[in-house]
């Protein structure tokens, strides 16, 4: 994707300047406008992104370690964080299974309506979260189209933690499909054919040849879906029921604290959420890097 960084695309003069002087700052280019473009970018980044996020960090630091710990370790905070992260994990795993399957079907099979379905996969991206929220709660309520089918079996989805998982799985689906689909499209058929000729069954080929090739993309899709689900608010609050300690997600707890003008409490929960998601993403990236290193050695 970043072909322009390769020497092939840079003008020879660029390379010459860099090599001769070990230049690493804004290097010579005949194009004008670097200062203006960079100035606008940095100004906007500073005002819109960096300054407000700094305010959050400083506010959290200003709470004081004791008060911070007290809010962070309160049963209600812990329950909200556990639900947000647990439901996000469950939803991301659902997305890995069905997202990979859908990606395979869209990449490999021809069937009527494939293009329409391919486009529809992006609906959760395009549909505003509040709309998704009320639509899902209408569907999964006891008198809804789907909830009504499950009610006779004693399965309740809307207004339970299960509802949270459903909403998060809806939101995260496109991340996995779109991450994995290109890999399946570009996978060399020869490798699969070789596996078959060497005597592997189709199932064995799938698990020993195809899925390992797609694994990094699956993990990437999983982590994107997970990150999105942890912070998700609009699609969840309508279907969750929002009972403290049971079906109250962390973002909702932030909103509740804000509405009570408890800025410190809201900031602490927000910091915990950001910190934990950061650690998870760090772990996922480290796992991907380790796998890559292992393969490089072989």
């Amino acid at each position, binding site marked *: 994707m970043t072909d322009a960084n390769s020497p092939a695309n840079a003008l020879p003069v660029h390379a010459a300047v860099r090599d001769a002087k070990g230049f690493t700052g804004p290097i010579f*280019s005949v*194009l004008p406008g670097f200062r203006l473009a960079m100035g606008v970018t940095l100004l906007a980044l500073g005002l819109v992104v960096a300054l407000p996020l700094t305010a959050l960090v400083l506010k959290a630091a200003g709470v004081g370690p004791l008060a911070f710990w007290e809010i962070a370790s309160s049963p209600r905070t812990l329950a909200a964080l556990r639900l947000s992260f647990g439901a996000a994990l469950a939803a991301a795993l659902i997305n890995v299974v069905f997202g990979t399957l859908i990606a395979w079907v869209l990449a490999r099979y021809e069937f009527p309506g494939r293009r329409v379905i391919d*486009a529809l996969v992006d609906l*959760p991206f395009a549909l505003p979260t509040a709309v998704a929220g009320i639509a899902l709660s209408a569907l999964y309520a006891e008198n809804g189209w789907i909830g009504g089918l499950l009610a006779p079996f004693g399965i309740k989805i809307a207004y339970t933690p299960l509802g949270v998982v459903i909403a998060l799985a809806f939101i995260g689906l496109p991340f996995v499909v779109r991450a994995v689909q290109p890999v399946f499209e570009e996978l060399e058929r020869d490798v699969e054919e070789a596996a078959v000729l060497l005597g592997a069954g189709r199932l064995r080929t799938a698990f020993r040849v195809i899925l390992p090739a797609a694994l990094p993309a699956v993990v990437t899709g999983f982590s994107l879906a997970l990150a999105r689900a942890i*912070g998700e608010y609009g699609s969840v609050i309508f279907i969750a029921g929002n009972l403290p300690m049971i079906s109250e997600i962390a973002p909702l707890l932030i909103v509740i604290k804000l509405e009570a*003008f408890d*800025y410190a409490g809201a900031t602490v929960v927000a910091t915990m959420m950001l910190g934990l998601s950061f650690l998870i993403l760090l772990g996922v990236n480290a796992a991907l890097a380790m796998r890559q290193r292992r393969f490089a050695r072989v």
Partner: protein
Amino acid sequence: MSSVASETKFVRGLLIGVALIFLALFVVAPLGVVFVEALRKGVGFFVETLREPDAQAAVQLTVLVAAIAVPVNIVIGLAAAWAIAKFEFKGKAALITLLDLPFSVSPVVSGLIYVLLFGAQGWFGTWLKDYNVQIIFAVPGIVLATIFVTFPFVARELIPLMQAQGSVEEEAALMLGASGWRTFFTVTLPNVKWGLLYGVLLCNARAMGEFGAVSVVSGHIRGMTDTIPLHVEILYNEYNYAGAFAMASLLAGLALVTLILKTFLEWRHGDQLAAAKRH
């Protein structure tokens, strides 16, 4: 499909079937239920809901917010892409990460950070009060929060596209005597127009549909600081389900139009899009 490396007809049918059922339950049903519920009390009620003054105000505010946030993001996105794609400098990777940051922040936190800055007890709270400027619980806060959550859309579409295109054409234009601005408007912009449109499309959809961030900073004043998504919530919490779904159907319609245009762009101009199928 006649390759040795392909599934039996039965397995293929089974996989397609499972995928279709999952998508029908998970994606198509929620979309369908919006329109069905919106028309539950008849077309008359539907039209009446949308013509209410509060609903009209919500539509106007949503359009206004998008009309500010989208152009701001176009300017920022073009500037960022120009700096990042056409020049080499230290810290480029860090800058790209920063540009993408709003996507990994919870919408609620995106609103919270502006409350901490501009709210009554925020950094600039007393100063703003002295000058009688209201940002939180007012339109400026909604616009700021919307710009934050839509910040990466245009830039992340344009950067890979302009990187792939390189600077050869611009250099030729400059050598032939065109000014910098003229080069930008007659060479660069036409080269990236479809990518820009793609980014704007996604940016606009998010700007008009954003709920979490806007909900935190809006204050929910009916007819004043309510956008369409917030009005959906208000009607829903008042148990006016048909009304809530009527408002929601406007946004669902917008989502469908966005998807159709997006698919059309990917199909017709896929070669000139960087992020087609990639997000």
